[in-house]
């Protein structure tokens, strides 16, 4: 996978955002550059409009569930 450390930082510097936090999928399998590549792919995909608005279908419940 192509390293794009600087590319993601460049994107971040030019964006309206100042901070980024990642949640790695499984870092024993991925490198720093792959993490940054994924971040770059994600933000570019978002800008290209290929993401969808997230809706959580789970309702908030206040009742203790019964064991079935």
């Amino acid at each position, binding site marked *: 996978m192509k390293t794009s*450390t600087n590319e*993601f*930082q460049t994107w*971040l510097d030019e*964006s*309206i*955002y*100042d*901070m*980024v*936090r*990642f*949640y*790695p*999928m*499984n*870092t*024993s*399998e*991925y*490198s*720093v550059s*792959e*993490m*940054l*590549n*994924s*971040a770059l*792919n*994600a*933000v570019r*995909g*978002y800008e290209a409009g*290929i*993401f*969808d*608005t*997230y*809706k*959580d*279908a*789970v*309702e*908030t*419940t*206040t*009742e*203790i*569930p019964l*064991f*079935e």
Partner: protein
Amino acid sequence: MDRVVKQARSAINEYIRVKLNNIPYQTLNTEDFSKFIAESNKLSLKIEYGGSMPALRGLILLNNDKSNSLVLLSDENNNCWKRFTLVKEICHIFLEHEHKIENDNALKMAEALMFHVAFLPNFLPTGDTSNLSKEAEKDYETFEALLGKINPLGAEETSAVVAAIEILIPAICKDWISKWIEQGCHLNDISSKLKVPNLILEHRLKDWGLKVPPLK
């Protein structure tokens, strides 16, 4: 009580007070909770999913002046992981200690994370403890000692995970979960009620000192 847990409970209590008329929740709509946290911090929030980010479950982008935020979730997450990842990212908004740390460099952030999970891999958690170093094993029970040894940026991720667990599997659920386990339920019976990943639930049960039931 741990400072991170305290902050998570404070966010929970405010949500319960404002949105639920002071009635504690058992399961949580993460979208509504996230919007509540963003609004409380006068922050615009967009939550989107999709794209290709194989090395990440998700990410959050924030302004230093806290006016805009964007959460991107990987579509490779199942619904439970999407919910958990969203709450974990939202915790970065209200965890106080985070604002004291310089964190505008993506490479530093990623390197810190790599170091962090190599040292303490199951706390993100990946469920894989095979890389846990001897030193980490020795200090495993002393969580604060471990946090002091690792990069603060990596520690922030652990804090956000701990806070997200507190929010999605709140302490109020412990009694009924304990009873269900006594009655012979499986791990997925509980996780499907709470809509949380099995791995996260397993971590919480161990943290509570409860027996972890088998998967169906």
